[in-house]
């Protein structure tokens, strides 16, 4: 038997095991309720959810390819794909997510020292410890490297003073990975990557109410916050490289995950929704011909995007992690997702413009909220314009303007 055939036999055995385990373990009551995982939903308390989380955490299957020594699943990419396929088949979803899984964990595994990895990876793997991202500041958005939150060396500890903004889920987070300024004389080379316990005295979190009515983001204030020195990740003044790497993981996650094209609200395909709200002609086509053309055009873009994600997965060799092409996916995914939201609201007419209360279905309200909230997808994680800069410079080799 060839090596490849032996491997595919092994995969078949693994698939059978996975299927069996999922059958026994995934609570059917959670089917289709992955929105429990959205950052502003808070910590789920549903007993079925908690059981499912515990089981997945023990297997390490919420972080399937992470090393076993820290509690990860230790699966190969092929096995992880099998796991994802089997979960998809029965409508199961990972109860272990958030920024720890998507962004911080992978970066920690690459840049953290042994002690930091042993301390922080297991909590992410089990879903017990939630992380938030201390990156943007009121004066440092797209120009992130101009951040000013001060971190001063006080001998046996660091002292942090300043303000972060757009810290997703800070009101529920246990820890914050934070970019801080440790040298005021340099821009990029004066930034360090610091891990801060959110229970430290001197931290204040204020949720920000958005146009969607939700508060997924916060302002986070640091006033004389003491941080132990072992919480510096990577070299002093070497945080920018680590911070950028983390952003690549973020773009990758945003392009393909919850920030991607399907983002809350109406989950049916656009044509089904259009048929319901707009009606059909005698040939069964969407009655409004202009709308029909735009729905088709959008659905083709969506298909092209999904095919591109599949292609990228097929092409990814080994465990190299995300490349500069994640900028393409982030931009395309967020644009196509916004187009879907715009079309949904248009298709639903006045029913798609409800704010709350009687007269609107839950799906309609959620669609409106998702449309408004989705405006953030081309702003956060590096705006569409910043992604275009990255594509132009890193992929296409165009130079900076002088």
């Amino acid at each position, binding site marked *: 038997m060839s090596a490849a055939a032996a491997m595919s036999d092994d995969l078949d055995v693994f698939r059978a095991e996975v299927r069996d385990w999922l059958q026994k373990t995934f609570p059917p009551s959670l089917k289709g309720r992955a929105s429990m995982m959205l950052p502003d939903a808070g910590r789920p308390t549903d007993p079925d959810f908690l059981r499912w989380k515990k089981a997945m955490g023990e297997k390490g299957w919420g972080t399937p390819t992470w090393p076993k020594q820290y509690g990860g699943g230790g699966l190969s990419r092929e096995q992880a794909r099998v796991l994802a396929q089997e979960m998809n088949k029965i409508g199961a979803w990972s109860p272990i997510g958030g920024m720890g899984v998507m962004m911080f964990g992978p970066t920690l595994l690459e840049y953290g020292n042994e002690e930091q990895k042993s301390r922080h990876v297991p909590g992410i793997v089990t879903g017990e410890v939630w992380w938030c991202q201390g990156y943007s500041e009121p004066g440092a958005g797209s120009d992130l490297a101009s951040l000013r939150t001060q971190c001063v060396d006080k001998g046996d500890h660091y002292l942090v003073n300043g303000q972060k903004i757009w810290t997703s889920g800070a009101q529920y987070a246990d820890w914050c990975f934070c970019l801080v300024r440790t040298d005021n004389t340099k821009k990029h080379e004066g930034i360090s990557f610091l891990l801060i316990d959110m229970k430290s005295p001197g931290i204040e979190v204020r949720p920000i109410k958005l146009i969607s009515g939700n508060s997924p983001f916060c302002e986070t204030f640091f006033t004389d916050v003491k941080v132990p020195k072992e919480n510096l990740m990577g070299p002093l003044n070497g945080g920018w490289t680590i911070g950028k790497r983390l952003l690549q993981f973020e773009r990758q996650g945003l392009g393909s995950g919850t920030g991607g094209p399907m983002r809350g609200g109406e989950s049916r395909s656009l*044509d089904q929704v*259009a*048929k319901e709200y707009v009606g*059909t002609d005698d040939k*069964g*086509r*969407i009655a409004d011909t202009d709308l*029909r*053309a735009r*729905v*088709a*055009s959008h*659905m*083709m*873009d969506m*298909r*092209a*995007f999904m*095919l*591109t994600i*599949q*292609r990228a997965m*097929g*092409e990814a060799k080994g465990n190299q992690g995300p490349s500069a*092409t994640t900028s*393409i996916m982030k*931009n*395309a995914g967020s644009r196509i997702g916004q187009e879907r939201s715009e079309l949904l609201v248009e298709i639903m007419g006045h029913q798609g413009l409800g704010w709350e209360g009687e007269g609107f279905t839950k799906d309609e309200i959620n669609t409106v909220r998702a449309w408004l909230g989705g405006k953030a997808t081309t702003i956060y994680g590096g705006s569409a*314009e910043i*992604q*275009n*800069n990255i*594509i*132009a*410079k890193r*992929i*296409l*080799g*165009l*130079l*900076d*303007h*002088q």
Partner: protein
Amino acid sequence: MAVLNEEQSMIRDGAKSWVQERSPVTAFRKLRDGGSNEGFDRKVWAEMAEMGWSGILIPEEFGGTGLGYLTLGLVLEETGRTLTASPLISTALTATTALLLGGTAEQKKTWLPKIAEGKAIGTLAVDEGVHHAPEKIALKAEKRGAGYVLNGKKSFVLDGGAADFFIVAARTSGTPGDKDGITLFLVDTKANGLSRQTVKSIDNRGVANLTFANVEVGGDAVLGPVGGGFAILEATLDRARAGLAAEMLGQAVQSFETTLDYLKTRVQFGQPIGTFQALQHRAARMFTDLELARSCVEAALQAIDRGADDVAQLASLAKAKAGDAVHLMSNEMVQMHGGIGMTDAHDAGLYLKRARVQEATFGNQSYHRDRYATLLGY
């Protein structure tokens, strides 16, 4: 780029170096300026056939390699890059597909080995109006004795001037617009009553309009079921669309890369114009669109090879997205080159002209968006 096996990689690399050495854009320009009526160079086609490209879809028993549509797509992508004019699309892709899907044993035995050797040129004659509309066939085929008599017209037939045989979509019953009642015929181009007139389009390829005046064919000329030819016609067209989309993709990629080089070298205001953000962001969007289009083209070709049941959807998707991409790239190629891009001496115009003809062939973007929606039931 799709994950390729060793053979596919070899063919792709071979095509890449061949087009650069033997068929750069200067070769196409020379052909155009030489006033060729056929639209391609027979010596160059013989070379391509020698490398096995004319027989990539043809099974070994008929003298080909049977490597499939993705492999042919890889070659088409490379020939598209340099605007290589050849009967790859008309013959190696479209006519060959029609023979494979609907041909009788005799028809296959007669024509496939000759195509593989590069000794026969065949083409599909489907449209009759200014737009692609395969169900609107009016060309009439009337039963007479054991055979049929064909009367009517066909327009914009690829390599119609050079072809040795046509696969003609004719109507044996019903009225234009009906999908039933269409029958495919294999007609020798020397048949009595058949005349062809080559047409000079902007891309300088050898298209022709055909007139059938009492053209008599035998019963053995029928390809596929009488009156039920539409399914084979559509399946043939879908494979042709996916292959043509691969050529368009290659051409779009080259338009983009040539333009990107220009952004890096053209200096204005004391710096390369590619340092200007207005141009950088357009380039970033173009690159993104090319990546999305590539996914569609490769998915369609792979689906055909796999015998998947959503070939029709994916072929329409590929043709539409490759059409959008080649449209945008060719326009931006002219615009970003500025005045030089308007000159006949520059290649931009050649890419622009070819792009529009490809877009119109076998259904433009608007046709395929409508078809995609119909296929998905809305």
